[in-house]
C-alpha cells in the first residue's frame, strides 16, 4: 500500500522535475525514493533532560520494575498552535519501552486483516450447472470424443472442477497475550520513533478543520494523525474538525489497534488514555490463566 503511494509520489515528483529545463539537474524519471523518508524539517525535539524546570504532570501508577526506569515525554496542548510543552509525563517502560518485536507486529497485523475475511468467491460444479443429465451422443460410432454430459469441466459452459466453493472464512484467533504484546510493541515503536504525542486534553478553540491542519504542520507531526481519548463523550469542536478531514481521525481508547497505529503516521494520546492503556495492558503480565472465559464473572476482576 505504501509502495504504491510511493511510486505514485515518485512519479509525481519525477513529472514535476521532468517538465523543468533539461539542462538543470533534473531527477531521472525512473527514480525510486525509499519509503522511510522522513520530512527533514520535522523537529527532532530532544527528550526532556533530567534537570527540566517543567512540572511532572503524571507519574506511573503501577510499580515500575527496579531494573527499568520510566520513559519521560513532553505533554503538549492543542489549544494554541505555537505553544511550548506544558510539562512532563512518566510512562511505564513495560508498555511504552518494550523491545521492538517486528514479528509480533506482523502477526497481529495479518491477524487483523484475515480474521474478519469472508471470501464470497463461488463457482458451480458440474452437478450444479443447469442441464447436463443426458449423454450427448452415444458412446461408440459417432466419431466424436466420448462424453457423459454437456456440463463437464471440459466443455464450454460446464462446471468448474476445483474452483472456489461458497463463502469461505479465514477466521482464527491469536493468543490474547500475543495481541496484548502487539499493542505494547506498537506503542513502544511509535514512542521510540517520536511519533507519539501526549496531550493534556482535546479542547480546541474552533471547530475548523484548517486549525488542526495548521497545528499539525506547525508542529511537524506528520501527514496523518490518530487521536485517541478515553470516554464516550468527545468535545464538539474536535469532533467537527476531524469529521471534515480524511487523514486525521479520532477513536475511543477501546478502539485502539495495531493496524490503525501503523496506518496513521502520528498518534496523540491524552493523559487519561495513558492511564487506561497502562492499566489494561499491564494486567496481562501478572494474571492467572483463565479457568473459564473472562466474560463470565470473576470475584476479583475487573
Amino acid at each position, binding site marked *: *500500500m505504501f509502495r504504491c503511494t510511493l511510486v505514485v509520489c515518485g512519479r509525481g515528483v519525477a513529472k514535476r522535475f521532468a517538465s523543468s529545463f533539461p539542462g538543470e539537474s533534473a531527477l531521472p524519471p525512473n527514480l525510486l525514493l525509499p519509503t522511510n523518508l522522513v520530512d527533514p524539517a520535522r523537529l527532532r525535539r530532544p527528550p526532556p533532560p533530567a534537570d527540566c524546570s517543567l512540572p511532572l504532570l503524571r507519574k506511573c501508577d503501577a510499580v515500575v520494575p527496579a531494573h527499568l526506569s520510566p520513559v519521560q515525554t513532553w505533554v503538549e496542548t492543542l489549544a494554541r498552535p505555537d505553544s511550548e510543552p506544558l510539562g512532563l509525563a512518566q510512562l511505564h517502560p513495560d508498555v511504552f519501552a518494550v523491545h521492538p518485536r517486528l514479528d509480533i507486529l506482523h502477526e497481529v497485523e495479518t491477524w487483523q486483516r484475515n480474521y474478519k475475511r469472508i471470501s464470497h468467491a463461488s463457482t458451480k460444479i458440474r452437478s450444479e450447472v443447469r442441464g447436463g443429465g443426458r449423454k450427448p451422443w452415444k458412446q461408440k460410432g459417432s466419431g466424436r470424443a466420448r462424453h457423459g454430459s454437456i456440463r463437464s469441466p471440459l466443455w464450454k459452459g460446464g462446471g468448474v472442477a476445483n474452483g472456489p466453493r461458497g463463502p*469461505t*472464512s479465514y477466521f482464527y484467533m491469536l493468543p*490474547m497475550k500475543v*495481541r496484548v504484546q502487539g499493542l505494547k510493541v506498537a506503542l513502544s515503536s511509535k514512542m521510540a520513533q517520536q511519533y507519539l504525542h501526549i496531550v493534556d486534553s482535546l479542547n480546541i478553540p474552533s471547530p475548523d478543520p484548517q486549525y488542526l491542519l495548521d497545528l499539525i504542520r506547525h508542529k511537524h507531526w506528520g501527514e496523518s494523525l490518530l487521536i485517541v481519548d478515553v470516554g464516550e463523550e468527545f468535545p464538539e469542536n474536535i469532533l467537527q474538525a476531524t469529521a471534515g478531514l480524511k487523514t486525521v481521525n479520532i*477513536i475511543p481508547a477501546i*478502539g485502539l489497534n495495531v493496524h490503525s497505529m501503523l*496506518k496513521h503516521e502520528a498518534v496523540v494520546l491524552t493523559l487519561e488514555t495513558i492511564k487506561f492503556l497502562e492499566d*489494561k495492558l499491564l494486567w496481562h503480565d501478572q494474571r492467572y490463566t483463565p479457568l473459564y472465559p473472562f466474560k463470565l464473572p470473576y470475584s476479583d476482576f475487573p
Partner: protein
Amino acid sequence: MFLRCFNDNTVPALCIVGHRLGIETENMAVLGGLLKAGASFCQSAATLLHTARTISTGTCCQIRMHAIPQLKKVDRWTEKRSMYGVYDNIGILGDFKAHPKDLIVAPCWLKAFKGNELQRLIRKKKMVGDRMMTLDKHNLEKRIRFLYRRFNRTGKHR
C-alpha cells in the same frame, strides 16, 4: 502479402523493437513464430513464398494494447480504509464484555468458524438447512455425500 521476405537485417531489428516495447503477451510467441517462418523461408527457395503457415506456440491474445496502462488511482484514506481494524481489541481493552468475533460480518454459519469445505457444508446444513430452497438443499446434500466419500474412502488419508 503479409508474409513478405524480410531481409536478414530487419529480422533481428524487429525482435529488438518487440523486446523494447516490453509487450509480453502471447503475441510474442506468434510474432516470434512469424519471424522464424519469415527468416527460414527467406533462405529457402522463393517458390515457397505463399505456402508457409503461421506458427503459434501460444494462445492468441484478444486484448490489444498500445502502451503501458496507467495505474488505477486508489484513495488510501476513504472512511473504510482509515477506520479499518478499529475495535479489534475490544475484548482486551473493553473488559471482555465483547469479543472481536462479534464484529465479523458473515453468514451465520461462518461467524467465528473456520473449516474445510465439508465442515462448512455440514455446519450450513445444521444451522440453515431447514430454511434453504429445495434445489439448494438437494445440491448441498449431494455435495456433502460426495465430499464425505471422497475424503473418507479414497486417497491416502482416511
